[in-house]
């Protein structure tokens, strides 16, 4: 167990969490609505990476289910927000 939980996965996870805080800064500060939508999309992709590193630390395979479903929901949410910002119908 001490061999699996070594120092490298924790370092990688801290770097990704720091990147997530940069995205949160852009969400809070961004001057227009598309800036915030871009930052939300990037944050969703970063969370898939966090799920991958949690899989590496714990050794359990089912955390990747969370990653796959999170990627799917992030894609659908980004497309819906883009269509809403564009101001058009969904069947164009």
């Amino acid at each position: 167990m001490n061999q699996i939980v070594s120092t490298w996965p924790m370092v990688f996870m801290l770097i990704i969490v720091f990147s997530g805080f940069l995205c949160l800064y852009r969400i809070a500060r961004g001057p227009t609505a598309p800036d915030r939508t871009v930052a939300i999309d990037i944050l969703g992709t970063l969370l898939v990476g966090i799920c991958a590193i949690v899989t590496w630390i714990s050794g359990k395979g089912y955390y990747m289910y969370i990653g796959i479903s999170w990627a799917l929901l992030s894609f659908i949410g980004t497309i819906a927000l883009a269509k809403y910002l564009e101001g058009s119908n969904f069947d164009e």
Partner: protein
Amino acid sequence: MNETFGTVLIAIGVLFDLFGCIGLVRLPDVYNRLQAATKCVTLGTCMILIGLFFIMGIGSAGIRALLCAVFILLTSPVAAHALARAAHRSGIKLWEGSVVDKYIEVDKQR
């Protein structure tokens, strides 16, 4: 399978993620932020997932990581393209240092 090679791949992917998010904070315009952050974070997350495949081997977790990498490679450029189109159509101005805007010319021809 090969843990050292997988760790190196994950380290490169994490650095790509960090540089993409620094570009998301530093660049001046929504289009510049989009083209910096989307490409870097897509490649970085895909390299993290492929590194996880090399660490875990051909099992349930590794195959799921490969599936997730293929899915992100397919969907993230589509979402970025839709966001750029939505931002341009909702009237976001370009940065004043930008040189060319082809999309206005295409809209005028319609």
